[in-house]
């Protein structure tokens, strides 16, 4: 009888413990952004369309929490999330858009085709603001509270199931 014969069983128990523990842990898919809890950097963007003003970061220092939506007319998931943005607008959420590397003509065409949920749209031709707030792709959506502090970051398009999550985050940011 050798202790070595028990070794495989011991290793296997180690694996079982680990796997069992991991199975009981809730799966956490949210991305913890390092920008959450930090203030927006200062920026001022010219308007990206003819009928909406541009975006000044100081605008976020006043009033209610808002959504900051990073998008582009050339981005296909942005088309997919348009109905959800419209729904959020219906719920009374103010959405500020930042169009990344876009042309006013394309922006106008996109908004005509897919609806315009934005109160303001800034034009970020060099992705400066996008990089400044820690966004690496389009679309992305940030919840910004009444003092200009980012409280939540959503990466990727907003699906119908994300709408309640965003509303909840906005409510929390408003407290």
């Amino acid at each position, binding site marked *: *009888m*050798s202790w070595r*014969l*028990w070794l*495989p*069983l011991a290793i*296997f*128990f180690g*694996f*079982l413990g*680990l*796997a*069992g*523990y*991991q*199975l009981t*842990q809730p*799966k956490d898919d949210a991305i913890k952004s390092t920008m959450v809890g930090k203030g927006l950097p200062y920026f001022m963007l010219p308007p990206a369309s003819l009928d909406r003003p541009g975006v000044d970061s100081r605008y976020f220092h006043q009033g209610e929490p808002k959504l900051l939506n990073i998008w582009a007319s*050339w981005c*296909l*998931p942005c*088309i*997919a999330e348009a109905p959800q943005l419209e729904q959020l607008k219906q719920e009374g959420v103010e959405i500020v858009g930042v169009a990344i*590397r876009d042309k006013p003509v394309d922006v106008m065409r996109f908004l005509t085709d897919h609806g315009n949920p934005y109160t303001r749209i800034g034009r970020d031709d060099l992705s400066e603001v996008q990089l400044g707030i820690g966004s690496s792709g389009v679309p992305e959506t940030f919840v910004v509270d009444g003092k200009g502090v980012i409280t939540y970051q959503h990466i990727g*398009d907003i699906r119908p199931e994300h709408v309640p999550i965003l509303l909840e985050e906005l409510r929390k940011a408003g407290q």
Partner: protein
Amino acid sequence: MIAEIGLAALWLAAALAVLQLAGGLLALRGDGANEIAALTRPAAVLQGGLVALAFGALLWVFAITDLSVKLVATSSHTAKPLIFKISGAWGNHEGSMLLWVTVMALAGALIAAIERRLPERTMQATLAAQGFVALGFYAFLLLSSNPFERLPQPAVEGLGLNPLLQDIGLAFHPPTLYIGYVGLSVAFSFAVGALITRQVTPDFARAMRPWILGAWVFLTLGLTAGSYWAYYELGWGGYWFWDPVENAALMPWLAATALLHSASVLAGRDALRVWTIMLGVVAFSMSMLGTFLVRSGVLTSVHAFAVDPERGSFILFLLAIYIGGALLLFALRAGAISEGERFSMASREGALVVNNVMLSAILAVVLLGTLYPLLTEAFDVRVSVGPPYFNPVGAIFAFPMLTVMAVGPLLRWRQDRWGRISKEMGLVAALLLAGVVLFGLLAEASLLALLGLTFAVALAAASFLPLKGRNLRRVPIATWGMVVAHLGVAMMLFGMASESAFSKEKLAALEEGGMTSVGPWSVRLEAVEPVAGPNWTAIAGRMSASYEQGEPVQIAPQSRNFWAPPQQTTESVLITRWDGQLYAVMGGSSTDGRWQVRLWWKPFVTFIWYGGLLVALGGVMALVGRVRVDLRRRLVRRKLAERRNDMETAV
């Protein structure tokens, strides 16, 4: 009605598995003449028939799209082509589990019907183990994933028209791997049976070997096909990503490869008894572990399976019982298995031991790398382990293994002198040296790629050496199988190393009419056109590609956008020549109206998959050779027995 027949057959089969387990256990307690024990074999055979009936019923409801069956309604659609309706039967969790038990029950039936070499007690123990393993899966199917569940109201239309899954490769890739996994479950049952009765004999290895070979062939095919699918479909130009799901399929293969070789030693030389048993348990453990990792979602993977923690718990539970039980049995019994034949290190057995140790080390490397994120996540650290770990650490063990692979088959069994094969070893060494110098001068490649090319050439030459000086017509088919499989490994290695050393990549932003070149190819983007499909739109880049100013070939890679669900995919185009592939991917437009085009020239990349096919072919040849020898041996035994009978009656 058909669905109910299927369900009833499944319940009956489960009941027979209980009978098979009970009969086997009673046979072990008594002297084997027990009345219930006599039922073990018929129970296994009948069970195979019933499960096949259940699987047939599932295929039928899918073929006629019976939308009152929940599984059909959720994963099929009336408008699908028939072939995808049928393959859809196992393209989901419930159906794939049914496929699993079907293959398993058929395998069990086959052993029960034809295997007569082993002592009856070992055979009963094996069938009991097989019944026990099957029972777990029946429970899983019947209690938590019933494929025949009816809807209260038939659905109007099915939900499963996902075009991405309508791919002929995807339809047959999972069953191929499954058959491999299940084949290893048979080897596992044999190992457990032999452990229980402590009769680890060459006959045991011979009985187990065809199953290992068969499983190994299917795993090889599954891996080869899966790798090629990822290569052309994902559009990243890579063929292996060390993704957890890929590793889940690779680990059983590594274990099966080791088991195959150690079982050969046991069958031929009656050595490596305990080690072969251990590998038999490990190989099936890796299959179960793979299934667990893929289905439970504990690891994040690029393969988006429908993961479900509850199913994960069930599989983990089964894993705990089977593997924990087998390892416990191993710890208790293995010490009592008497030592096999001894051999010197300079012998075929010695080489195979080194090969086994190296394969096991590679298996450990892959296992550790795959499970490491699971470990760190327990401490809230997220890591992903990729090629920078797997490639070099795996290579540390792979190159010694390849060296042994080149010279090992030349050694004699039991005892040999290195001096006897010094000429052959000199040839291999010279080839290695020449390769390093030649490729080192020719190519600016990484050390690993350089070594890979060199070893590939040396191994290819060495794989023919066992045939030297033999009458080729009298060489057994199994030996030919070894030669072919080893040559296949060399070919695969050459493809991988060449891909890594000589690939050229070009990312160009082209206007319509623009030209670019990659390696020996020049590519012109003629035009960019929109293309509409049934549920997608795409931009297609019409290009003409010419190899060294030769006749241009027209290609049109696409970038597709599906809208339900919204998803972007690339339809890459490959131009295959004997000496490599041009790989073209169409990207999006850049802001200034140019188009992103991604091109690769990958010399000899196709050797990877040709090599894989050769390895599988070698396995088939070995299987055919072994089975033929077995059959002939059985015939001779029967004739001898008849003659003895005749003589006795004459006397």
